[in-house]
């Protein structure tokens, strides 16, 4: 009896080996070897496992993904399954692009495994041998294409639950592991939206893993006839937002509610991929994509090219912008001080030159430091633009206190060692050098909000360039800012044009305190808008304490230790007020402090909505700390005529406030090659492209632009942007 049982057992074991004849094994076909493989040699009833079609391509030959692209054909598996076995769909690993003379396909080369999940009915008896069979068909191409098909099969044993399961061939197991590793994954938090842009479709993806490089991204449309197959460059629009514009497929017929994408990152073994579902976005995440067009700003200068010509032009613009900065209201008081210092030293050419150079060094060093900081922060993925330093309340408050302190000094409340800001007669020593240097630093600090005309394109250009070029542009800007003073210090004839020193200088010095007080007021107003009226009050209290401290210092020529301690305590309190203020956030501005004219707040959604409806729109990107912006608004965007023009042409006026950091606005600016405000864009009725207006507005210029926009798409001109 035991012998019989043993015989049965032996028979049971040997039978499957005999039945192995049912397996087709690898089949050699045109330019490939194909095989049906199973990840498991045996399964238990009710289990799910993977079988797969393995295609080993000859070198340079490829087969196709579920969406084959411009030509080609997806590989198909028609299953011939025994009763009780069901197959799911093919699980497609992330594909690769093949570009043959402009015809772009999606597919695979090398050793490919297309896994398919199979389920075995719970009712199937253990001991059954399943002949899993399929007809596979494919198109294999190099420069020519050959359709192929083959009848394939693989055997899988059904065993009782808990029985030992023999391992699959290591080579096959390895292929399954590799294939699963190449599978696009679902990742919680990935969201994507798309919007129709006429000839193109914009897709914005949020939630991809941090640290991905947009340049290493490949995007594959799962469905045919929506996106063009050719690779479209992806770009990081803001923190964690990737945008890609793809022309429509030549065979585009319509947009579904949603479509699928596979997004792959990197190459080789570290390549990763994710599945993304793009949903039609009435609310596209980024508006700059909504406007579609973008190109060189009106000046045509900056982002045009990365060549040396573009760099030279940008540096020239930066230089000119720097010179103009000298006249800006926020810079002038500082320069007036500097000029006074020069008057003192005008009798000594060597000294004058020395101060000019130290001043230049101060300006350049601070511009390069600011530029470097901007570059570094951007590299870290921060959505920042020029003027970013004034988006921080504590910087604004600090500048206000500094202005106040300088003003108080000019008013005679105190003098630091009698030589504050070059005002003393001792100019030869190191202290004079330092004062010159820090005058330069100060000039840059206060100049940064006044983005002068010509500076916008140059800084926009700088931000799109490698660090070295960006810094060259910032350097040119600094040179421009320093130039007038440096000239005066080097050309004695110019210096002689300055009035001779005399008793009037004391009067002048005291008079110059008032522009500084006004500058402080302006900065405090900005702070109030940023951090609210409570923060403003605290900083004002801090300012008063600071004034008290300075008064203590200035009361006697040699202050007592007690008054020194008092002064330091006062200063600490003032700084403490800044720290407190910077923690506040003003309720997002809906005040009309900045505007007299009815406008709507710019939001990506509102912008997209209006443009989708073909409504003409004026976009004004502004900030409370931007003097040019405020001047433009006062001059050209507040008049009754402006209001009447808006109404007559049915133009909606959208205003974006960049006083606070706002990644959407930063992205919009970048779209126009800009990196700072102001930016004015007028979009015509219908679907035309936006027209970028100059950074200095006149009422006539605005009126004409509004009239053009109201009458429909404007004809192409260098100032236009195209889609």
């Amino acid at each position, binding site marked *: 009896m035991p012998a019989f049982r043993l015989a049965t057992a032996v028979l049971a074991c040997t039978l499957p080996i005999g039945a192995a004849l049912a397996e087709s094994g690898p089949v050699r076909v045109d330019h490939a070897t194909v095989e049906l493989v199973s990840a498991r040699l045996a399964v238990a009833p009710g289990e799910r496992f993977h079988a797969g079609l393995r295609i080993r391509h000859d070198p340079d030959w490829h087969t196709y993904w579920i969406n084959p692209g*411009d*030509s080609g054909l997806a590989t198909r598996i028609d299953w011939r399954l025994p009763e009780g076995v069901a197959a799911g769909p093919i699980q497609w690993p992330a594909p690769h692009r093949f570009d043959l003379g402009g015809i772009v396909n999606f597919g695979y080369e090398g050793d490919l495994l297309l896994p398919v999940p199979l389920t075995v009915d719970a009712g199937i008896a253990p001991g059954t041998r399943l002949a899993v069979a399929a007809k596979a068909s494919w198109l294999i191409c190099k420069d020519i*294409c050959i359709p192929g098909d083959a009848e394939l099969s693989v055997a899988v044993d059904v065993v009782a639950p808990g029985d030992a399961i023999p391992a699959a061939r290591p080579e096959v197991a390895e292929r399954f592991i590799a294939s699963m590793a190449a599978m696009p994954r679902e990742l919680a938090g990935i969201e994507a939206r798309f919007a129709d842009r006429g000839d193109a479709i914009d897709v914005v993806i949020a939630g991809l893993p941090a640290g991905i490089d*947009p340049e290493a991204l490949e995007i594959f449309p799962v469905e045919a006839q929506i996106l063009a197959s050719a690779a*479209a460059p992806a770009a990081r629009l803001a923190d964690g937002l990737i945008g890609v514009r793809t022309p429509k497929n030549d065979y585009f017929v319509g947009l579904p509610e949603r479509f699928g994408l596979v997004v792959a990152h990197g190459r080789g073994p570290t390549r990763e991929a994710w599945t993304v579902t793009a949903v039609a976005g009435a609310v596209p995440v980024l508006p700059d994509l909504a406007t579609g067009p973008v190109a060189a700003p009106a000046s045509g200068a900056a982002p045009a090219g990365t060549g040396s010509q573009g760099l030279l032009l940008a540096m020239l613009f930066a230089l000119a912008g720097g010179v103009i900065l000298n006249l800006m209201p926020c810079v002038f008081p500082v320069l007036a001080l500097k000029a006074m210092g020069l008057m003192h030293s005008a009798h000594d050419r060597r000294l004058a030159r020395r101060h000019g150079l130290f001043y230049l060094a101060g300006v350049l060093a601070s511009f390069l430091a600011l530029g470097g900081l901007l570059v570094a922060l951007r590299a870290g993925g921060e959505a920042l633009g020029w003027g970013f330093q004034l988006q921080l309340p504590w910087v604004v408050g600090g500048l206000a206190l500094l202005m106040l302190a300088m003003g108080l000094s000019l008013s005679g409340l105190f003098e630091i060692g009698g030589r504050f800001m070059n005002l003393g007669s001792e100019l030869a020593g190191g202290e004079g050098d330092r004062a010159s240097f820090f005058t330069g630093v100060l000039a840059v600090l206060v100049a940064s909000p006044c983005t002068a005309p010509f500076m916008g394109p140059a800084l926009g250009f700088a931000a799109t360039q490698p660090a070295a070029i960006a810094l060259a542009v910032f350097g040119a800007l600094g040179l421009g800012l320093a130039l007038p003073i440096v000239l005066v210090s080097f050309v004695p004839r110019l210096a002689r044009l300055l009035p001779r020193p005399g008793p009037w200088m004391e009067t002048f010095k005291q008079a110059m305190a008032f522009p500084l007080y006004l500058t402080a007021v302006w900065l405090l107003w900005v702070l109030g808008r940023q951090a609210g009226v409570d923060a403003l009050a605290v900083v004002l209290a801090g300012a008063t304490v600071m004034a008290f401290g300075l008064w203590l210092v200035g009361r006697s020529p040699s202050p007592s230790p007690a008054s020194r301690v008092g002064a330091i305590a006062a200063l600490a309190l003032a700084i403490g007020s800044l720290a407190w203020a910077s923690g506040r956030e003003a309720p997002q501005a809906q005040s009309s402090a900045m505007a007299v004219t009815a406008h709507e707040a710019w939001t990506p959604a509102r912008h997209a909505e209006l443009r989708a409806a073909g409504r003409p729109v004026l976009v004004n990107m502004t900030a409370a700390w931007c003097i040019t912006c405020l001047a433009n608004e006062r001059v050209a965007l507040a008049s009754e005529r402006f209001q009447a023009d808006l109404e007559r042409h049915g133009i909606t006026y959208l205003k974006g406030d960049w006083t606070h950091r706002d990644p959407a606005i930063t992205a919009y600016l970048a779209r126009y090659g800009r990196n700072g405000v102001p930016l004015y864009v007028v979009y015509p009725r219908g679907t035309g492209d936006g027209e970028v207006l100059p950074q200095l507005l006149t009422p006539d210029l605005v009126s004409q632009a509004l009239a053009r926009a109201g009458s429909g798409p404007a004809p192409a001109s260098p100032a236009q942007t195209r889609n």
Partner: protein
Amino acid sequence: MLRTLALVVAGIAAFALAGTASAAARINEPAPEFTLTDSNGNSHSLSDFRGKTVVLEWTNAECPFVVKHYKPGNMQRQQAEATANGVVWLTINSGAPGKQGHVDGAGANAVIEKTGGKQTAYLIDADGTVGRLYGARTTPHMFVIDGEGVLRYMGAIDSNPSGDPADIAGATQYVEVALAELAAGKPVSTPVTQPYGCSVKY
């Protein structure tokens, strides 16, 4: 990061370029004009056929998908029926010299003879100019242009993208449908489909 921004700008420029580059054939817009020499050395321009419906068929006799439709006679049957109804049928070969399927005039005539082709003319576009002009990317790839020179159909020969001749029977022959609808003065019900086949060997 800066490179990313540069990319935004570059990408923007690329969009602008793409806009002009793919100004190829668009459905329901005038079909691009062209002039090509046929297998017998005669010159044909699209505008010569104004007033007649014109079918453009991109071909490559060695492409298995073209063979799929020639071997069982599906393509020739459609050519014969169309030309009998006054339709002009132009077969175009955009294969570059040295690439699979490229033919000269004599080679084209040999193909016509072998397959029993019933096209109006077999045009040779060895430098691919017209193929690119129309954005032809597969063989076969079909275009139907109405008597006013407006493109009314572009896409696949039929609705079953496979290499198996057995699939022809159950598939919708899109060109046939389009021609019938145009003849009846009706709009083409399926004006755009995804073409399938071998890539054009430019």
